């Protein structure tokens, strides 16, 4: 399923000059979670996707897109 999803988490995080750990604190998850989502290893739940979008001040659609 992970290969069906593209994300712009790394770019959005970098744009706000946040480290993975800092974003993890904002969202309330571990750095491991941020890392795996960024690398496309893990497909986040809807709740986590919404939390990530809110923490980065963007929308889920901006952060995640279907591949292809």
């Amino acid at each position: 399923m992970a290969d069906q999803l593209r994300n712009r988490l790394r770019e959005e995080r970098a744009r706000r000059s946040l480290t993975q750990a800092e974003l993890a604190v904002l969202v309330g998850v571990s750095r491991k979670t941020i890392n795996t989502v960024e690398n496309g290893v893990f497909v986040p739940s809807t709740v986590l996707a919404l939390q990530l979008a809110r923490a980065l001040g963007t929308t889920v659609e901006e952060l995640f897109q279907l591949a292809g």
Partner: protein
Amino acid sequence: MNTANDVEIADRMSRRRAIVVGLAAVAFIAFQFVDNPFFIVSDPGTQRAVIRRVLWAAYTGALLLGLATGGGLLDRRVRVLVDDEVSRGHYRTASTAGFWIAMATGMLIYLYGGYDLYTGQQAIYLVVTPAVAAALLVFAYLEMRALRSG
């Protein structure tokens, strides 16, 4: 509200847990080959085999408990971070891997083991041991991969 310190501690605990789980799995596999390989199968009646059977059950039980509970971290805030949805996903994947290893081993024993080659206890030992080891190794691998900086 989590702090940077919580995230840092969770990172460290996750890494430590992955290493401990991996080492425990290797030790568990090695334990099967020490002294009298597959002792239950080859030598079921002796006192030595009974002691090892109890040790095996205790070791297996402890490993499964550790895998199911995430290792029993005490601080709830850190525990929530260590056992987040990524780790819960890894736990499910590891459990699935263990399940399929158990199925494959069970089928092999059924097909090639013969009718009276193994007792029920021996067959359970042969099915459970590789399944538990596989589940632990898969969990440790997935956790270490997730912790690698990207």
